[in-house]
């Protein structure tokens, strides 16, 4: 029996994933081209703005990075929760509550610089974790669907946050509904001149590395992944799946909470959100694009941010609207999420390889 160990199958898989990803993006971008050609009066300008707009200037590219930071946080949060096969949508609420928590700490609790943002971010993470753990508790205790309860709870926490901001922290002198200004000691330092890129970029990179190590190099991370793959198998192997569900959702919420706080302290000087920012839901897109792989999440987030900023540019410079990008996004996600897209091609690839082996 031929039993030599060759890492060939793995390579084929990776190669296929790359081809599939490229094909999905290629198809959706060509679709975008076609639609732009039909709709726009000046299609060349629109296309140029869409794809090159984000690299027109440092400021624009800065915008991409600024947007990629919260998207990465949300993507990581969702990845951890989805890895455990829990469709928890609470990241949106956790993100919002994290931002509110950071605002409270930044306004009400005076602390020395450096310690101030760290304390705010950790407290925000804790609150976010609790937000996402509630649907998990409801699920393991009473079997309530985490999808439904987390979606509902998002609005509960949104309104709770809005209540706190508008009634306890509101700046009556500000023109719009907004909180009083944060203490300067709480804000994250800006890094690059002419952009708003802030310290959060380091926090997000460290978080991504920690999530990767946690999932792939620790016992608890292993338990989490096995529970996600096959819960009965995990249970049989002696993994405490109830605990896994609880801590996976808490960790996901924790990351979302950190994300909310980082966004708030890095990008704003007062709390201004009067609607859910939508990062939690964007996180789902990012997680799907990255296939729940924490290493790919920042890449996917960057890609999505690039597309968004490009659309923004296209929207303001031409007669085309921002909605265009939603169409492109939809097509890409559909093609990537579809399990059997190009499956025939993969089959042929594997067969060819097997023939070479013989």
């Amino acid at each position: 029996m031929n039993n030599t160990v060759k890492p060939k199958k793995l390579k084929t898989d990776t190669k296929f994933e790359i081809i599939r990803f490229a094909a999905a993006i290629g198809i959706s971008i060509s679709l975008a081209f076609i639609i732009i050609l039909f709709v726009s009066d000046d299609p060349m300008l629109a296309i140029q703005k869409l794809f090159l707009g984000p690299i027109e200037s440092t400021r624009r590219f800065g915008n991409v990075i600024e947007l990629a930071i919260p998207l990465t946080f949300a993507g990581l949060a969702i990845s951890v929760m989805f890895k455990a096969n829990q469709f928890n949508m609470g990241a949106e609420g956790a993100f919002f509550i994290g931002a509110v928590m950071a605002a409270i700490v930044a306004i009400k609790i005076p602390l020395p610089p450096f310690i101030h943002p760290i304390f705010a971010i950790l407290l925000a993470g804790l609150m976010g974790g609790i937000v996402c753990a509630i649907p998990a508790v409801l699920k393991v205790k009473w079997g309530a669907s985490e999808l439904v309860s987390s979606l509902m709870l998002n609005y509960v926490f949104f309104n709770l946050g809005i209540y706190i901001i508008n009634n306890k922290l509101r700046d009556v002198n500000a023109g719009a509904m907004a909180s009083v200004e944060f203490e300067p000691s709480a804000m994250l330092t800006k890094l690059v001149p002419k952009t708003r890129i802030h310290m959060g970029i380091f926090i997000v990179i460290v978080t991504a590395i920690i999530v990767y190590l946690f999932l792939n190099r620790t016992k608890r991370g292993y338990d989490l992944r096995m529970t996600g793959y096959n819960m009965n198998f995990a249970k049989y192997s002696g993994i405490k799946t109830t605990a896994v569900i609880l801590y996976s959702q808490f960790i996901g919420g924790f990351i979302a909470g950190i994300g909310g706080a980082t966004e708030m302290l890095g990008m704003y000087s007062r709390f201004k959100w009067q609607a859910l920012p939508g990062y939690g839901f964007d996180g789902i897109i990012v997680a799907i694009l990255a296939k729940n792989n924490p290493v790919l999440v920042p890449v996917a987030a960057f890609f999505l941010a690039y597309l968004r900023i490009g659309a923004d540019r296209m929207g303001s410079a031409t007669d085309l609207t921002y909605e265009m990008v939603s169409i492109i996004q939809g097509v890409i996600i559909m093609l990537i999420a579809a399990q059997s897209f190009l499956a025939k091609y993969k089959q042929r690839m594997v067969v060819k390889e097997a023939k070479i082996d013989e």
Partner: protein
Amino acid sequence: MTLGVAKMATIEENLMSTYLDGNEFKKGIFLNMKKINEWAKDKVSEFIVKTDSEKAMVKMLSGGNIQKVVVAREFSNNPKFIVADQPTRGIDIGAAKFIHKKLIELRDKGSAVLLVSADLTEVMDLSDSLMVMYGGEIVAYFEDASQVDEMQLGRYMLGIERQTPEEIGRCVYE
């Protein structure tokens, strides 16, 4: 497939699932990936799992090889007691022979093996002692499996004959 393996996980991950509670494969708070990998490679070759790599997904394997992965995990643990319920059903002869060999090895190492099977030849080839069940009850016990033939077994299996409670009671050891 529902309890034994996680299809989407790699062979290595399926092999290690019951081995992580102790500190054998840990390095501080992390798992010792190198050691796990070496161990998994060992198991893959010891149990002749036919695959390109121990990092391949279990769903890429044939039924017999998936069974071998499960067997590799369960038999490598120095188990005190193994319940092998239809261990060779639906797999090829080579793999079945191999699992038989491993069961005998386990016996020799001092594990108690309870083999449950609908395959009479398997039962008679492997077992030291035999018990026959009929209608949900144990109806016969043979201390030495080599003294029995299929005809005799058949009569008990069909419920035509039945041993006395004393005869059956011999299967209880203190």
